[in-house]
C-alpha cells in the first residue's frame, strides 16, 4: 500500500503544481487569469493577440450560452474571499456594477480609456466600457412594416408575433431595467403587462429568438446586434432595425463590454496591462471587424460598412449604475412576470 501511496502522490504532484493557486509564488513567465462572458469565438483571438504582443500567458474561463453569460460572474462572487481571477471581461456593464456594489471589483482608471464617453465608464474606475452592442429588432424579411419603437411591441398589431429572451437573464434583463429607469416604474410595469396581454412568447436566449425569427416562427424579436448581424452574414432571411431613432424617441439601448479588475487578484500588474490592452482602439477595431460587429466607443476607429458609428445614433440616456440598481429591485416582479 505504501508503494500505491507513493505512486498516487507522484501522479498528482504535477497537477497540483501546474494549476498553481493564488497564494503560490509567481512563475518566471507572467500569468494573468481572466474570466470571460463575451463569446469565446470572439474573445479568444483578442486574448491570443495579447499573449503574442506581451508574452504574458492568459489563463481563461469562458461562459457558455447555457449559463446565460453569468456563470463566470457567479464564480467571481463565490470566490470573493479567495479570488482566483485577475480580471473580468464582462459582456455588459450592469453585472460589472453589481460586482462593484458587492466589493469584488477594484478601481482602475486606465489611460487607454481616454476618449471613451463618460456614459460608458464608471467615474471611480470600477469598470470601463468598450466595444458595444446595440439592442435591436431582428425582423423576418417577410415583414413589410416593422415597428420603430420598443414600445410598439405592446401594440395589438404584433399580437403573438413577437418572441423575447427570458428577461431574467442576460442583456434582456438589463434592457427591461433600463426601460424602467427611462420610463419610470409604473410605466415600465404597465409595458410588461401589455406585452403579456399581447401574447409575447419567451425563449431561453437572444440566439434562440433570432433563430425563431430566421425560421419564420416569429415575425420579430428584440435581440443584441451581434445576434442579428451574425444571422444576416450567414444569409438568413432577416434584417436589423435600430429602434427609437426618432427625435423624441427613447433612444437605442447600448450595451458595451466592460473590463473589471478583481480586488485581491493574484496578478495585479498583468491584469492592468490586459485592461489597457482591452480598452485600446486596436481591440475595438478587431471586435468591429469580427462577426460580432461591435461598435467602437473610441472616436475615429475604422469599422466595416455594416457597423454603425456611435455618433450617428440616438442613445437611451440612462446611467448604468441606476440600471444595475433597478435590475436588482425589479427582479422579484420579473420572476413573477415570467412565472418563476
Amino acid at each position: 500500500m505504501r508503494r500505491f501511496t507513493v505512486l498516487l502522490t507522484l501522479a498528482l504532484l504535477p497537477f497540483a503544481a501546474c494549476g498553481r493557486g493564488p497564494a503560490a509564488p509567481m512563475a518566471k513567465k507572467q500569468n494573468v487569469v481572466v474570466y470571460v462572458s463575451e463569446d469565446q469565438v470572439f474573445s479568444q483571438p483578442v486574448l491570443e493577440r495579447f499573449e503574442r504582443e506581451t508574452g504574458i500567458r492568459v489563463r481563461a474561463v469562458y461562459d457558455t450560452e447555457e449559463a446565460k453569460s453569468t456563470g463566470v460572474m457567479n464564480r467571481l462572487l463565490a470566490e470573493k474571499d479567495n479570488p482566483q481571477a485577475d480580471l473580468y471581461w464582462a459582456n455588459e456593464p450592469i453585472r460589472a456594477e453589481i460586482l462593484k456594489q458587492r466589493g469584488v471589483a477594484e478601481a482602475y482608471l486606465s489611460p487607454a480609456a481616454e476618449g471613451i464617453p463618460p456614459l460608458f465608464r464608471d467615474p471611480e474606475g470600477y469598470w470601463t466600457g468598450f466595444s458595444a452592442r446595440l439592442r435591436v429588432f431582428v425582423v423576418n424579411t417577410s415583414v413589410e412594416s416593422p415597428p420603430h419603437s420598443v414600445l410598439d411591441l405592446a401594440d395589438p398589431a404584433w399580437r403573438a408575433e413577437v418572441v423575447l429572451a427570458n428577461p431574467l437573464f442576460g442583456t434582456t434583463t438589463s434592457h427591461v431595467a433600463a426601460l424602467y429607469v427611462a420610463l419610470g416604474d409604473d410605466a415600465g410595469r404597465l409595458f410588461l403587462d401589455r406585452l403579456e396581454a399581447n401574447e409575447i412568447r419567451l425563449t431561453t436566449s437572444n440566439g434562440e429568438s433570432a433563430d425563431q425569427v430566421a425560421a419564420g416562427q416569429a415575425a420579430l424579436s428584440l435581440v443584441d446586434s451581434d445576434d442579428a448581424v451574425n444571422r444576416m452574414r450567414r444569409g438568413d432571411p432577416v434584417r436589423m432595425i435600430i429602434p427609437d431613432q426618432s427625435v423624441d424617441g427613447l433612444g437605442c439601448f447600448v450595451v458595451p463590454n466592460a473590463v473589471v479588475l478583481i480586488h485581491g487578484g493574484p496578478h495585479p500588474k498583468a491584469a492592468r496591462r490586459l485592461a489597457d490592452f482591452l480598452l485600446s482602439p486596436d481591440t475595438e477595431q478587431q471586435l468591429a471587424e469580427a462577426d460580432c460587429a461591435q461598435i467602437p466607443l473610441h472616436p475615429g476607429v475604422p469599422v466595416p460598412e455594416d457597423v454603425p458609428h456611435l455618433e450617428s445614433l440616438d442613445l437611451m440616456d440612462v446611467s448604468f449604475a441606476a440600471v444595475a440598481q433597478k435590475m436588482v429591485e425589479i427582479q422579484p416582479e420579473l420572476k413573477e412576470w415570467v412565472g418563476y
Partner: protein
Amino acid sequence: MLLLVVAGLLPIAVMVARSVTAAGHLSFEAYRGLLTSPRQWLLVWNSLTLATLTTLGAVALGLPAGILVGRTDLPGRRALTALLAMPLLLPPYLTAVGWMAAGSENGPVANLLGQGAAQALFRFLFGLPGCVLVLTTAFTPLVMLLVAAALRGVPPRLEEAGLLVAPWPTVLRRVSLPLVAPGILLGAALVFLLALGEVSVPPSLRYRVFAVESLSQFSAFYDLTAATAAAMPLAALTAVVLGLEALAVRRSGTAHGVGVLAGGSVLTIPLGKLRHPATVAVWTVAVLLVGGPLMILVGQAGGLGTYVEALHSAGDSLWRGVALAVVGGALLAGLGFVLAMLVRERPGGAGTAVDATALFLFAVPGTVMGVGLIVLWNRPWANFVYATPLILLLGYLARYTAVTLRLSRAALELVPEGQIEAARVAGIGWGRRLVWVAAPAAWRGIAAAGLAGAVFCLRDVGMTLLVHPPGWDTLPVRIMTLAANGAPSLIAALCMILVAVTVVPVAVLSMILGRRAVVR
C-alpha cells in the same frame, strides 16, 4: 472509502448544511421559495416526464438489442455492439448537435426531402420529443450492455431444462428474463437518473427541466444557497430511486446478475427464419440513431482544413482533457479495485455501503457535484486543490468510481477463490494480497476499468463546466463555449475529434478483453 467520502459525500453534505442555514441559524427559507413556486413544480413534472419517456424508450430498445447481441446468432454482433454502445461513450449533446445539423436549412434532410421536411424535423427536435430521442439514443446502450452481460450469466442448465419442454421464446420469457430482471431494473433506474440529471441536451433543445434550474440559480441569481437548495431534490430523488431499486432486487431474491461470466459457456439462441429480417431491422435502427447523426457531423465538418483549424483552436483543450482522463482513469482503476476487493471480502454492511455510495454518486447530477465541490473547496487553505486540476480529479473520483468498482468486481469474480484464500491462510496481509495476488490475476479487468474510467472523465461536461480551473477547460467544455456563435463546421469537426479520441481507447479496451470480456 475515506477518499470516496471526502471527494463525493462531503461536498454534498456541506451543500445540505449550507442550504438549511442562514446567518448561522437553521432556516428552510431557500426550500420554501423552491416549494411554493408553481414554476418549480412544472419543471419537476417536465423532468419526470423526460426521464420516464427516456427510460421507457431505452428499455424498449435496449432489452431486445441486449438479447440480440448477447445471446443470439445475429451476424456482426460485435460490430453492432460497438456501434450501439458508442453514444454512451460520448457527451449526449454531440448526438443533439448531429440531429440539429440534419434539420438545418442546408442540412441533408432539406437537400433530400425539401425545406418543409427539414422544418418539420426541427419542430420535432426542439422540445420534449427531441430530448427523448437524443437521450434514448445516448442511454439505450446502458440497458443493452447490462442485459447482454446478465443474459450471459444465466446458468445454461436452467435453460437446457426449459428447452426440454418449451421452445426458445418461452424459455427466454419464463426462465432467462426473470433471472436477469434485476439487471434490467438497474439499467432502467440508471437511465432514469441520468436523464433526470442531464443538463446539456434539454437547454440545447429548448426543453425546460429541473436539473438546469440549479445551474440557473447559480448562474443568474447569484444565490448559492438557493442553487444548493435547488440541487437537493435531485440528490434526494437519486437516493430514493436507487433505494427502491435495491429493495426490488432484494425482494426478488436474485442478485443484479450483472457479474462477469467470462469463460463460462452460454447457449446461443438461434434466430432461424428471423435471422435476416432481424439483422436488417437492428442495423437500420443502429445506423439511423447512432451512425446517422455522426455521419451528418462528418459532412458538416467538411474537409481536412476544418479539422486542422479545429485542432489549432482547441488542441490544447483536447490534450488537457486526455491528460486528465489518463490520470483520472488510472486513479479510478486503483480506487475501484481496492473497493472491489473490500466489497468481495466484506459482502455485508461495509461492502454494501461502499457499493451504494459509489452508485449514488454516479447518479447524482454533475452540476450538483460541481456546486458541492465549489462550496467545500473554495477556501484559501485549499487552493492547492481548488485552483488546480486536482479539483477535477476529485470530482471524477467521486462520480465515476461506481464504473470501475463494478468492472473490478466483475474481474475479481474471475479470480479463483482458493488463490486469494490460500494467500490469506498463509498470513499474507490484506494489502499484499491485493497487490501481489489479486491484481496480477485480474489485470485485464483493472485495465478495462481504467480505460472505462478514462472515457467517462473525458466525456464529463456538467461538473467540469462548473469547476475547471482557469486555462484547464477540456474539449467537451470547449465545444460548449464555442457553440455560442461559433462556426457550425468548426463545432462539428471538434465533435468528431472528440469521437475519435474516445473511440481509440475503447478499441484498445476491446482488444484487451477480446471475446472473453463481459461486463456485469
